[in-house]
């Protein structure tokens, strides 16, 4: 990516973010999208606020060419929400891939007039792909936490009950003797 292109993208960051956020809002029912956009209080509108702030940080990291470490936390805040909403896994993370097309929109004139090379575009695309893969990892981790919560809850409710009612007795913890011959 040329410095020039990166600078231009950073300058259009506001427009790109707006389009990207609008796209994500379109995955919600219209009345919900309106609410997420309109309500400014972060505690009254935690989903809209968290997603908007997360997208801004992801985009900033992406345009600056930061590593995955700095993108991972804000991306997590978005995916963590979408992982428990009524989306299929692909629907939950598809918005990441859509960034490719939003970037193309913002470069439309440059592309048409061959001021941006295919190689440059492919570099950008591959970096979006990396974020999408990262999103997939986060999504899976979130879903695993849900199932882990279920298992822990069942264990906590039933096993401790049996134990406290003296219906099961666990073997006491013993230290393994490193030298069994000396007994």
């Amino acid at each position, binding site marked *: 990516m040329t410095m020039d292109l990166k600078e231009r993208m950073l300058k259009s960051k506001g427009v790109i973010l707006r389009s990207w956020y609008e796209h994500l809002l379109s*995955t919600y029912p219209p009345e919900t999208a309106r609410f997420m956009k309109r309500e400014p209080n972060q*505690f009254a509108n935690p989903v809209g606020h968290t997603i908007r702030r997360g997208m801004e940080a992801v985009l900033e990291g992406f345009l600056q060419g930061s590593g995955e470490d700095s993108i991972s936390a804000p991306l997590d805040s978005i995916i963590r929400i979408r992982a*428990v*909403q009524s989306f299929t896994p692909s629907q939950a993370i598809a918005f990441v891939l859509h960034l490719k097309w939003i970037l193309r929109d913002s470069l*439309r004139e440059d592309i048409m007039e061959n001021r941006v090379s295919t190689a440059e575009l492919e570099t950008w695309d591959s970096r979006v792909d990396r974020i999408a893969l990262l999103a997939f990892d986060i999504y899976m981790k979130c879903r695993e*936490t*849900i199932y*882990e919560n279920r298992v*822990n809850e069942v264990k906590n409710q039933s096993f401790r009950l049996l134990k406290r009612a003296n219906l099961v007795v666990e073997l006491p913890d013993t230290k393994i003797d490193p030298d069994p011959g000396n007994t």
Partner: protein
Amino acid sequence: MAKIPKASELPLGHSIPQTPWMETPVEFRPGTWCYGGKPKNLEVVGLPNPREWSPTDEDWKLPDNWKEIVMDGLRERLERFRTLKVFMDICVRCGACADKCHFYIGSGDPKNMPVLRAELLRSVYRKDFTTAGRIFGKIAGGREMTLQVLKEWWYYFFQCTECRRCSVFCPYGIDTAEITIIGRELLNLLGLNIDWIAGPVANCYQTGNHLGIQPHAYKDMIEFFVDEIEAVNGVRVEPTFNRKGAEVLFITPSGDVFADPGTYTLMGYLMLFHEIGLDYTWSTYASEGGNFGFFTSHEMMKRLNAKMYAEAKRLGVKWILGGECGHMWRVINQYMDTMNGPADFLEVPKSPFTGTVFENARSTKMVHITEFTADLIRNGKLKLDPSRNDHHRVTFHDSCNPARGMGLLEEPRYIIKNVCNNFFEMPPNTIREQTFCCGGGAGLNTDEYMEMRMRGGLPRANAVKYVHEKHGVNMLACICAIDRAVLPPLMNYWVPGVNVTGVHELVANALIMEGETERTTDLRGEPLLGFEETEDGDDEDI
């Protein structure tokens, strides 16, 4: 160069229903609904239509005249409950409630808006019970009661925790919780309960508590905690069971007997009562403060609640002290006195240590433990060392029912501030009357509902996350057993690093007891500040 499609021209890969809400059928996504009530649990309390069924079955095995049963049931309730009639008629759909529901905020599903959830019932009411609806049908907002509508009722009336946050914002004072309560009553006429409610109701009725813990096991379990306490501070507390002639009967939710972290709260009660020398008894029959009958029908609530007074009468106590529970207090505060009272055989509760008369409980004869403990602290009756909670940075989650159902806002805070040095409030629009639900109240705290619970608890978790990041909060205190069960997985998902505690666990940590050995750990066995090294001191050479 080929034409580059615009971002807005691309297929989105997702679809928002294009049909109006009335014609959009409900989709049973796993994780967002609870298992259907088992026949044995319905049979034991005489609920209608017991049979094996699953909400995802096409055929719900309903009686042939199910529609007639529902419409007759609605008619009867409209005559019986003036509130229902008023709530059906006066909503102007202003939308003030729409974005106040935790399930709506978390899910984004418009049918979780309180106004629309109520509209599910209201549309049927309009069609059959209003002149405009009878004549103009859909144009007047009316719709036919169909199987699809019934399934929608079931799905969404079990996606409301009856927390009443929406009612705080309604300019007409419509209480959507009461609409959900009636909705669930109507569903119960057809045997359409969830098993997480039906099971506890049956067990509570048959055995005395939600899990069906029998008297000997209940006693064994509390004695287990006696040993645990002795291991922490060397003091042996001596609880009594079913003791006639005790001054006070203590009733708490059974959740605190078998599930962490509620168990530590229960240890807190035992320690407090021992230290002040309260003449009290546990009951192995009235061994449940919770009342899942409240989530079934008014009749079932009354039936399960009655055992509290019956046991108080049998034991001949003067008054009842109640533990940290949520909906139990709404039942006591709002319904008990007129349902099963007046309890003339009991005395107006008076603290034997401070002489304070609990005027607010003059009628119900039942005092909330945070009122009791706050009064003890206020009158200097407890020796406390708040530094023993210095390893905790605490915030307080107002449980919906004590906060909105009985205005219990100050007492828990007063106690926490006296037993902890580090207390931080969450933002004002997420606490007190505006508190956000834990996401699992009203009988929805079951594991198969985990995804929905994560949605519903999102606004609460978001506020906890804020104080966690801003003040380093690592402990979320509450006064409800359902909270203590629901909040830990919620924190594990949204705000790892925050644990959950009852207020009386914090009290017990700080409580200086007569004859205690040096305290180096809290009730959980975690080292107090300054004692971190002693725990693994033995391992230093390894």
